[in-house]
Every structure is written in C-alpha cells, then in structure tokens.
C-alpha cells in the first residue's frame, strides 16, 4: 500500500531533481544548443564564481526576505484581531475573505498591482500616481509589495492557527503578573508564535525566491535569480541553467534546516 506513493516520490520527484543536478555537469555544444556527453565543471564555475551572479543571488534573497518580513508584519495584527477581538460569527467570514484572493489568477493580481504602481508619464500613470500624486514606480518596492500581496494568505493561515492555539490562561497569567499588552506580546505571545511564523515563512520565502514573473511585471529593470535561469534555459543552455538552479536549491536547504530548528514542521 505504501510502496506506490513512495515509489512515485523517489522516481518522479527525487529522480527528476537528480537529473536536473546531473545535467549541470555536461558541456554544451555551442552551435546546436544541446548538451553533449562530455563532463565539465565550467558551468558551476560560471554560475558560482562570477561576481555579477553573486550580487544577483544576494539581491534575490533580500527581496524574498523583505517580502516575508512584510507578510509577517501584516499577518500578526490581522491574525490577532481575527482570533482574539472579532466576534465569533465574524471570524470565519474574515478568514475566508482574506484567503479569497488565492482564487484569483496569479497574473491577474500581478497586473492589478502593475496598474497601481504604473509611474507617471505622458499618459498620467497608474492608481498611486493619479490619486496620491506620486508612485515609487517599478522596482524593488513594487516587487516586494506585490510578492507580499501574492503570498500573504500562506502566512496568515498558520499565524492565525497559532493565535487560536494560545491558551487564554497564559495571557491571563501574564496580565495578573502586571505585564502590559506590549510586554505580553513580546514575552508570551511572540515566542509561542515563532513556529507558526517559521512555517508561514517557508511558503512566502521559497515562493518569493523562485519567482521570476512578478519581477518582470512590476520590477522595471530589476532581475532575480529565476530570470537568469529562465533566460539561460531558453538560450538554450540547459546545463548552465541547471547550474544556476543549485543556488536556490542550496539556499532553500539551509533555510529549511534553520526553520525546522525553530519548530516550523510541528505546525504543518
């Protein structure tokens, strides 16, 4: 009974991952754009020792981290309100309302944000520009805000569940011992929520790190690691593209290890 799914996992998932990693070690035939059967380390060398690509990777990680931080900053008060302050009948409605954007298409949402951030120009620009008279335009800000908007429900749900699980007795005890709201949040609520936040951040961070479409739509001339992988793959230079993917793969392995130390997987 178990062997079927396990076989599927090993062959289809790990097998294709292994194929991907192996293909990074083949030499490309310059002219036909197909990989040969010759082994080489040149692709790894190009992908990992070029200064421009390192800057790109650092930039991608910072963008993903900023999008994650934005999600956390918004999810904490919103989840707190739904879980602790909203009337019982309103709770379910609010959770549904906040996760409904997941039903809308990715591109629809990205292009909606594009219409909001469109900088001023010959024809007046987008929403921010026409209503508030100024827009940060396309670039880092727009990319981070759009990514945070796209992945927000993935952070909200675990954090909300975390709040639901907080025993009231602990909050009462904190109050009885004289702690104010902020102190209770800092010393009681936040430490107990860390596993939930870590779980949510796995989604927001990994989805942001691998994204290359949002940054095309609202990023202006900004590039992320996914854009370079896409362009190299289409070049077509499959071996070098495979070498580039080792960047996000290794970053995510490290990230998952750190998050599991924080207790993220106890909450999934």
């Amino acid at each position, binding site marked *: 009974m178990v062997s079927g799914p396990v076989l599927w996992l090993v062959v289809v998932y790990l097998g294709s991952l292994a194929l991907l990693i192996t293909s990074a070690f083949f030499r490309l035939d310059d002219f036909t754009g197909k990989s040969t059967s010759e082994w080489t380390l040149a692709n790894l060398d190009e992908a990992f020792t070029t200064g421009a690509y390192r800057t790109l990777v650092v930039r991608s990680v910072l963008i993903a981290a900023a999008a994650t931080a934005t999600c956390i900053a918004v999810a904490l008060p919103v989840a707190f309100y739904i879980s602790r302050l909203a009337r019982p009948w309103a709770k379910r409605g609010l959770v549904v309302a906040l996760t409904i954007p997941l039903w809308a298409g990715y591109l629809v949402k990205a292009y909606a944000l594009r219409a909001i951030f469109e900088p001023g120009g*010959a024809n007046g620009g987008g929403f921010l520009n026409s209503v508030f008279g100024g827009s940060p335009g396309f670039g880092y800000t727009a990319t981070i805000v759009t990514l945070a908007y796209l992945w927000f429900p993935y952070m909200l749900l675990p954090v909300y569940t975390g709040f639901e699980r907080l025993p009231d007795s602990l909050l009462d005890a904190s109050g009885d011992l004289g702690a104010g709201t902020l102190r209770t949040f800092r010393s009681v609520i936040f430490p107990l929520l860390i596993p939930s936040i870590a779980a949510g951040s796995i989604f927001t961070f990994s989805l942001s790190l691998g994204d290359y479409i949002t940054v095309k739509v609202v990023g202006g001339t900004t590039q992320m690691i996914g854009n370079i992988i896409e362009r190299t793959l*289409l070049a077509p*230079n499959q071996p070098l593209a495979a070498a580039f993917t080792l960047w996000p793969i290794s970053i995510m392995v490290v990230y998952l290890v750190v998050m599991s130390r924080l207790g993220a997987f106890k909450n999934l």
Partner: protein
Amino acid sequence: MKRARKVFTLSAVALLTLAACGGDDEGGSSSDLPKELGEGEGAVNLVAWAGYVEDGSTDPAVDWVTSFEEETGCEVNVKIGNTSDEMVELMQSGEYDAVSASGDATLRLIAGGDVAPVNTDLIPNYADVFDDLKNKPWNSVDGVAYGVPHGRGANVLAYNSEAGPAPTSIKDMFDPASPWAGQISVYDSPIYIADAAIYLMATQPELGITDPYALDADQFAAAIEALKTQESIVGQYWSLYTDQQASLESGSITLGTSWQVIVNLASANAPAIMATKAEDGATGWSDTWMISSKAKHPNCAYKWLNHIISPQANAGVAEWFGEAPSNSKSCDLTADPNHCSTYHAGETEYWENVYYWTTPTEKCLDGRDAKCIPYTEWVNAWNELRA
C-alpha cells in the same frame, strides 16, 4: 571548436569517399525528401512570431487561418515564441510541426537536426517568391532548401510623438544625454548586443566593425561597455511584446526598440505611438518557415507552408505584421496599395543597412581571419549584464 573542426574534417572526408564510390548518391538528406503529399492529418502545430498566425481572434478582419482550416481540414494550433532562443528550445522538444524561424535560429535548428530539408516542388507558391530570398545562407545548405522565405523587416524605433520630436538615430537609444533617458525600452535578448554594435559602427568607426554579428574580443568588449552605459537610461527590458505594448500605451515608455506589429497594436489604443527606422542602420529579420524533422503532421505542415506564402495570406501577414512580403504577387493584393513601397519590398538599397539576425559563430561571419565571439558567449555576457 577544435572538436567541431575535427568532426567537420571527418565528415568532409566521409562525403568525399561517398562521392568517389557512389557518384549518383545525392547524400542522405535530399534523398529522404517526400516525393508527394498525402492526405492532411487533421491538425498542425506551429511555433510562430506574434502576428504571423492570425485566426481573427485579435481582429476579426485579420484572418488567414480559417480559410486554410476549411480548405485542408488541418486544425491550426499555434504557440507564440517570444525570442529566437525560445523558438529553438520549443522546436527541440519535437512537439511542433513547423516554425517561423529568424536567421538567428535557422542555422542552429539545421545544425541540431531539428528541422528537415523541404521539397519545394510540393509547394507550388514557392515559384513566386522573390529570387533574392531563395537559397540564402540562412535558409539552405548546399542548395538544399530548409524552408520557405516568409518575409523580412527592420527592427524599428517606436516612439511617443506627444513626448517630443521623433528620434532619428540609434544614438538616441544609447547616449546617456538622450532626451528619452529613463523612458527607453530595450529588447531583452542576447541578440540585442548587435544593436550596440551598430551604435559603435556609427560612433566609433576606429573599431572597424563591418558586421554586427561578427565581433572579435575587443569589439565585443566595447559593445558590452556601451550596453552597460545604456543601462542607466533604460526604463524597461522587454521580452513579452505585450509588456512593451502596455508601457508604450501607458506612456511610461516613450522610445524603444520595437517591431512594427507592436506599434500597430499600441497605436490602436494610443494614436501617438509611431515607428521609424534609425538612419544609421538597424537589425532586422528575414524569416523562414521550416518543418520539424520529427513532425507528426508533415502533410498538413507542407500545406501550411504553401498557404502562408500564397499571395493572399502572405499579403495579409505582411500588412498586419508590418514587413515586406516574400511573394512577388502579394504586392497586388495588399489592402493598402502602397504597402510594398512603404516597406521597400523590392528596393535593394533600403536593405543595405539592415543587418538580418543571424547566429554569431567563432569563425567570423564577415569572412576575416580572426576569432569571433560565439553565441553562447553572447548569452553569458547578456546574462551578466542583466544580473
């Protein structure tokens, strides 16, 4: 490359031996050509540039697919390729029957064995194609055609006529003091390095560039330097044509490397969008419809090739896409009677400073005895520039 040369020598020796022994053998490729066409297979899968395969869904008046489907019973499925690189990648998958390949893709497809030689006797309309487009280095090997010429055009400068005077030179795209600085849109593909080479041909003749696709190490470095300088005035690097169209319409982009078809689409919503060809020269394309070597619907593919270069369809595409038709009889059928003169279909001098996209190779394409930068290096350099 050393290895490639060895392979080449070996195959040359093999060919000589074959010729010496056989005599009447024409070589594997041409004897494999189909001699006659059978019934259509009911469908044909195409990879094409945006605007090449229109079934009336973009504009009801623009439709040369429906008539083909009715006549032949071949249902047309089309996948839009955004760049030549993407088209090569799609054709390598073997899922498609035919492709509208530009010169920077054709040779790679032929070398990779992804496309098959074509028996032009089975394509009656081939006879009417302009002679100066037949059997060119980018669409044939040793006199064997690998496809049918579709049309040609120059990459234009799209601009917003309300934002200021019209651009005249490619310098407007590269000069840091350009009046359009910050609102410039650049084609996001390694082949764009050739545009920088054309800019250098106009501004730094001492570099001695004669062919923007044949750049030695020094010339290539200068082109990359020009692109790095350009980066500070670029507002957008586009690869999806709809992205550039949207930016032109919204006004956040006022000058850009473009295609006539994008300008046509954008000007329908924003009449201020216009196009011109840079006086110092431009990159361009001469496209070829080719048939996949693994085509699952070869009969429908042949019928499509014949249809797309028929005077009626060819005139339709040429007018919609904004390019010069390849069929000499198309000029009488365009809705605008001046189309062929507007697009300089038969004027040799107009095409003199249009440099058709082609694949840069280590052996310099302009024939000089030097080492040139091959296309893979172009891709890496473009990646690093954009990283």
